[in-house]
């Protein structure tokens, strides 16, 4: 966990409001694990004040790659940074996905949830796992990095709400179909909360150990403020609040209180 100024290597717009950012940050890249995130200052003045959390989309060769949507002022500022400029960064933060080797894995991404699963897919493949990657979006324009995903040597399953690409319907329904015919040793998901809840139900029903990556508004990102909590259930079924930034963002899907 470090604080440093990372140099922008490349900033590429790959969709109307989707950007890929490559940062030179050897100290972070050296230890980053799939599911972890970085926390970036996105501006110069005192407004916007807080850092913005972004998942590590890929990491290697001393570089971090981030995949993000330009959503508000922070990400808009980020998208304007040119190669050579510096970005103030904390990372790598959080607990990543559990890595296994030589297994059959399902990765389920809803929309921007693809961001951390890309890095996971690559490492999972390097560890000799078979990976089925389920990727859903509203429509075909919400699908990104398809070529890069395929290059990872995974099986790619596409779903869109409007059927403009792949299966018409939720990505979880697409996974549900596969669950009938395939055995998965583990499943991982990232995406909107309702999709994750559905994913967790399916995984539990199929008795597949499953992990989800959650989002919550963050201030510090390193566990100091208790601002980013989500409700979990402990082994006795009792509800408690856990920091998403340090206890997560990746959690055992069975531990999450989906009702809130």
């Amino acid at each position, binding site marked *: 966990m470090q604080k440093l100024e990372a140099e922008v290597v490349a900033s590429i717009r790959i*969709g*109307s*409001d*989707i950007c890929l950012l490559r940062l030179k940050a050897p100290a972070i890249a050296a230890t980053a694990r799939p599911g972890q995130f970085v926390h970036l200052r996105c501006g110069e003045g*005192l*407004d916007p004040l807080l850092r913005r959390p972004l998942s590590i989309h890929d990491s290697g060769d001393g570089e971090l790659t981030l995949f993000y*949507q330009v*959503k*508000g*002022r922070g990400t*808009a500022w980020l998208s304007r940074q040119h190669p050579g400029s510096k970005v103030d960064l904390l990372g790598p933060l959080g607990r990543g996905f559990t890595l296994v080797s030589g297994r059959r894995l399902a990765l389920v991404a809803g*929309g921007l949830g693809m961001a951390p699963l890309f890095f996971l897919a690559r490492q999972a493949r390097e560890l000799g796992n078979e990976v089925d990657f389920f990727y859903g*979006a*509203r*429509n*075909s*324009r*919400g*699908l990104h990095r*398809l*070529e890069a995903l*395929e290059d990872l040597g995974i*099986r*790619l*399953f*596409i*779903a*869109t709400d*409007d059927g*403009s*690409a*792949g*299966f018409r319907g939720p990505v979880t329904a*697409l996974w549900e*179909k596969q669950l009938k015919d395939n055995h998965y040793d583990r499943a991982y998901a990232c995406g909107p909360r309702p999709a994750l809840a559905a994913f967790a139900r399916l995984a539990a029903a199929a008795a597949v150990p499953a992990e989800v990556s959650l989002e919550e508004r963050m201030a510090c990102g390193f566990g100091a403020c208790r601002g980013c909590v989500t409700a979990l259930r402990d082994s006795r079924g009792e509800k408690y609040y856990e920091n998403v930034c340090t206890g997560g963002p990746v959690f055992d899907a069975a531990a999450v209180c989906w009702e809130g």
Partner: protein
Amino acid sequence: MEQAEKRPGVNPKEEDEKLGARGKGLAGTGCAGSGLKSRFTPQEPETGAGVNLEVQLGDLTLPNPVMPASGTFGFGEEYAPFLDLNRLGALVVKTITLEPTPGNPPPRLMETPSGLLNSIGLQNPGLEVFLREKLPYLRRFTPPLIVNIAGRTVEEYGELAARLSAAEGIAALEVNISCPNVREGGIVFGTVPEMAARVTATVKGQTHLPVIVKLTPNVTDITVLARAVEDAGADALSLINTLQGMAIDLETRRPALANIVGGLSGPAIKPVALCAVWRVARAVKIPVIGMGGIVTARDALEFLLAGARAVAVGTAGLVNPRAIIEVIDGIKAYLQEQGLQDVNELVGALRI
């Protein structure tokens, strides 16, 4: 890959709703970026036909719910080069006192993080000059004219009310019992419920005009003041006035303001204002005018949701003289986007 195309064709007609959703919601509301940028359009476009923007503050009808905040709008004429005054929900002038008030010595201003600290001290030419030189100009415009008043004594409030009520072209009085920048009266009236009630009752006794009482946030419980003033007969409330604040110049080791303390306004105080409006709107039956840090239509809409029947734009207008017009246009655009017919539907519509 099964049951799915590999390289899906892009359908350019289809909006990516997920990605577009947030951006779209803000498109017309002038909320992109800081909202402090705009271009001057000499001819005001009348957008938003078909949606009702009219609101009622008791007996007072406003063509739309957006007005300037007292003290940031001078006597209206200062804004005339930048906007059409007839488009505003109301015209609200700087606090008027019985006698001319010189105001505090300079420096009177200091910028703070997302805020402005001021110690103007109610500088104004006094009632006489207002009636003679400012009122005739202001009467030329169609929006209701709200005259903000402050006295050093309860009696002065009464006299101001009486004399202004005798003049023509004034639609309502706003009673400033909350200015932190004057030594006498001012904020004392605004912090003691009994005093606030007395001022209100006195003003009510001297005027047929609707009386709006302006509250300070510098109290332990603003709802106590709000209820006291409501019980004393106020027709509406406006809140918040500025927060008491201070700034120091490290170079000189002196206070940044000659008056030492001042009033904090601007975006920095918006969360405090929104909270005060929400709490007061639930505590009283009379309508509330919300203000404090409103820059964009988005901000204004939040105040309406919190329970404000109308809103005022203060500091933002000093930075962008067209902010108020952008707020009005943005509210219209939002109503249209949301398929709402009437701005009143949003008032207090916060989902808890």
